[in-house]
């Protein structure tokens, strides 16, 4: 049964997509079945997973998150409506092959998701119509790459996830934003009575200097030792290069690749 994890932070540019894509890739390399869902209208996870040609071909024959939202969102409160029929997830997934026969599935996003958001009532919704029991039983991990906002999409992710992974940059804005996430999660739980039960904060673009160290201390002190990953994702240009090539970091450079591998090990134990 899949563990559904949202990669989320309301602050942009913290490495959510890089983390999501590399996680999907490395978990697949370890033999796990992975579904990566792009819940961001900016579609960065889609861009890094599919080439332009692949995306065009996918759109010609299959669907994206915008279609999923258009046809089958399910309000969960205040009045639970009749459950819409589950979607056939294979109509949405793109098979992203990697080394050997390994692959993970991706549900791409596009700008239409943004248009959908404007026409959707505020919700709350979840993704149960898409992540049916059959889908959940097919995968080991379902990773939701979220948009850097607190929107209907974020609500859906929080209502559908059992865990959230918060990438953060260890600076004063990052501390502020991540502590804000704690408040958002508290409010979310109070409002909807449901939400992720396991949280993990991971430091991205990490630099071993006094100020990041001090910001990390502040987060550890506030969040507690079990909710902050010990592995850190160092600032490294190889991530940009890997993203540009639509490759994982381990395919591109061994040093950051080994570091990311340590993070994946901790991730598997954490969630």
């Amino acid at each position, binding site marked *: 049964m899949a563990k559904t994890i949202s990669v989320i932070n309301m602050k942009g540019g913290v490495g959510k997509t890089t983390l999501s894509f590399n996680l999907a890739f490395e978990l697949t390399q370890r033999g796990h079945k992975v579904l990566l869902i792009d819940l961001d209208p900016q579609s960065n996870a889609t861009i890094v997973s599919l080439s332009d040609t692949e995306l065009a071909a996918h759109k010609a024959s299959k669907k994206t998150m915008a279609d999923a939202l258009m046809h089958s969102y399910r309000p969960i409160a205040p009045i639970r409506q009749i459950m819409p029929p589950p979607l056939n997830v294979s109509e949405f997934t793109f098979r992203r092959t990697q080394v050997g026969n390994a692959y993970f599935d991706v549900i791409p996003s596009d700008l239409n998701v943004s248009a959908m958001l404007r026409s959707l009532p505020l919700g709350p919704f979840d993704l149960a119509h898409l992540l049916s029991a059959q889908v959940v039983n097919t995968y080991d991990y379902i990773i939701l790459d979220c948009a850097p906002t607190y929107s209907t999409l974020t609500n859906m992710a929080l209502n559908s996830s059992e865990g959230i992974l918060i990438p953060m940059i260890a600076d004063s804005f990052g501390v502020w934003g991540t502590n804000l996430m704690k408040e958002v999660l508290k409010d979310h739980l109070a409002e909807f009575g449901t939400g992720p039960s396991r949280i993990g904060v991971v430091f991205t673009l990490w630099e*071993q200097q*006094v100020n990041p*160290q*001090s910001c*990390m*201390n502040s987060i*550890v*002190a*506030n*969040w*507690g*030792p*079990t909710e*902050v990953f*010990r592995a850190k994702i160092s600032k490294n240009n190889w991530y940009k290069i890997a993203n540009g090539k639509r490759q994982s970091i381990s395919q591109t450079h061994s040093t950051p690749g080994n570091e990311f591998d340590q993070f994946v090990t901790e991730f598997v134990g954490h969630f």
Partner: protein
Amino acid sequence: MPNFNDFMCELNGLPPDQRRVLEHILEGIYTLALDVEVLPEIREKRLSEIDNYLTKKAQRSKSEVVIDESEYLRFVRNSIQHGSNVSAENVDKAMPIFWRLLAKSAPEWHREHLDHLLSYTMGMPPSLMIQSDDSSGASIIRHHQKVFKGLSPEDKRRIFRDLFLSIYIRPEFQQVLGKSKRSGSRERGNEY
């Protein structure tokens, strides 16, 4: 009580110029002590002067040790932070100083934050003692120090790195380092 020959043996290890000065001083003291002609009150006064000098010297040595401790921690911390080579011996030497100063800083800490930081950097789950209202910062530190002491030398060094870097920059710890420095300077200032 060391005898005169002990002093002479120690002189052998000194550089020639220092040795000459010390020999001269020791000869003077020896002569003074043996001089039967000198009045008892003068001998008393001279010995009292020597005693005062040695007492002050001992006090200064003690304050210099405190200054050295904070300076030493700063040296080790900077070496680790900036990736310089710092020997295992130097790191080992910093460990007891760190724990002693951390214990001194106990009243400055928010209990929960202290427990979180120590547990995180030592790779432990949060200690259950935090749930008890009567646990103090000092008892949290003692608990973690006990765990630390039980580690192998290799694990100690590996864990100490993160532990030390994290705690060192905290204002609660810096306050104690600052106090140590200030008290050291004050004692020295009084003397001169």
